[in-house]
């Protein structure tokens, strides 16, 4: 489905990604783990076209999409859920969903279905998104990606800054996305949560992929996990 091949990215003068390659297959949930500043968000930005890579290619469904505009990539079915959540605060929940509806790549998802699946959002359908709690906003932005009938969801730290019981809800939502057979590239710092959700994963450290493997393989690699993700250095 998604093939990222040897991308390099710079932020100003500093190189933040070094030859990063990864792939996401059909119906697969793939994790991208790493500490703050490891380059996870930059990787997603490069795929979504927000910040195109300086070298390397991004191929989606056999088509080279490197350097295409953000909106063009989005319309091909790659929906990015950015890390800072960012629904449109001034719009209502329903308006946010209507706006995000995209039937280019299917019609499975629409606003009624989204509100049906996320009852908590349904209750607040006519409230401004800016007035939602952090957890509700996170639900909303995931629902916004779903009504876009995505062929791949890029999910950037959905649990960040959320209270533990809300984290459980979000985990549940990601499971449902997975059950809907939509491929997901999940960026997460919370290792336990991430390993529970993914089929395969990559460990990113200082802009380089240091390790990759199945969820089980990663779970066993306690030394690497500690070194690249924990604080015991």
């Amino acid at each position: 489905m998604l093939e990222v091949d040897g991308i390099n990215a710079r932020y100003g003068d500093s190189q933040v990604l070094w030859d990063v390659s990864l792939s996401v297959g059909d119906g697969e949930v793939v994790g991208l783990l790493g500490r703050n500043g490891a380059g996870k968000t930059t990787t997603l930005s490069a795929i979504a076209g927000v910040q195109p890579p300086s070298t390397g290619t991004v191929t989606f469904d056999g088509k080279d999409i490197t350097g295409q505009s953000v909106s063009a990539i989005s319309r091909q079915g790659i929906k990015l859920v950015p890390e800072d959540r960012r629904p449109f605060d001034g719009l209502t929940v329903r308006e946010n969903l209507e706006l995000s509806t995209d039937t280019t790549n299917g019609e499975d998802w629409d606003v009624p279905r989204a509100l049906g699946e996320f009852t908590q959002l349904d209750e607040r359908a006519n409230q401004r998104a800016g007035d939602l709690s952090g957890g509700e906003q996170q639900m909303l932005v995931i629902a916004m990606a779903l009504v876009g009938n995505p062929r791949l969801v890029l999910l950037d730290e959905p649990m960040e800054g959320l209270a533990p019981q809300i984290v459980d809800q979000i985990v549940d939502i990601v499971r449902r996305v997975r059950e809907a057979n939509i491929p997901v590239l999940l960026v997460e710092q919370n290792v336990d949560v991430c390993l529970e959700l993914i089929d395969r994963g990559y460990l990113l450290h200082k802009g380089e992929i240091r390790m990759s493997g199945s969820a089980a393989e990663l779970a066993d690699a306690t030394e690497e996990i500690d070194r690249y993700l924990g604080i015991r250095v």
Partner: protein
Amino acid sequence: MVLLDAAGLTKRFGGFVAVDDVDITVDTGEVHSVIGPNGAGKTTLFNLLAGAYEVTAGEITFDGRDITDLPEHERPYLGISRGYQITNTYESLTVFENLQTAVALYHQNYYDMIRSLANRTEVTERVETLLERFELAPQRNVEASSLSHGDRRRLEIGMALASDPRLLLLDEPTAGMDAGETERTVSLIQELTDDMAVLLVEHDIEYVMTVSDVITVLERGAVIAEGPPGEIREDERVQEAYLGGKADA
């Protein structure tokens, strides 16, 4: 000696509590780091201390003086200086001019419209010292926008040091640096602390563990641990904050 003392510091943006009742103290001569996962409120805390944001609740005392409501531009004169996370230099000015600006605007009367800046030998001398200290002398005539990333980060720190601060606030000084550059910066910071306190916001754990005397760990805006690196490394809650661990605990 306690230099900076912040108590009950809170910052709300609308309904969102970015910094939640944080107490933090920095002593003279220590390197104090603030770490935590993304979104923990590190940069917000930093901006509160620097005066870029207004405090919602709590107070900040510096050297015994209440500075909670002191405007940002007056804090340098008490001895507080800051660097930026995203390099924030004068892009179209040369390295020399960047440092000259930082030195002159602090040490000279910046309302002086007549006397030539270039003839202020005391300014030029200080700039030369900074150029040497930060190994930027060869790039003196290079515009900041054309510097390599590491050089720019060091210029950034150099500008923050131009006011001879007693407390230096640095936000991720090694962001985007390679190993060699990071090492140079580490030793630089260690040299600095002989005569001043440094408050670091960092995500590079290895680097934090090397340079810090004290580490404060933030999660969701609140302090979850504080102590020397060794203690922090073994702290269960910190482990959990970094590696996850679900709520069912």
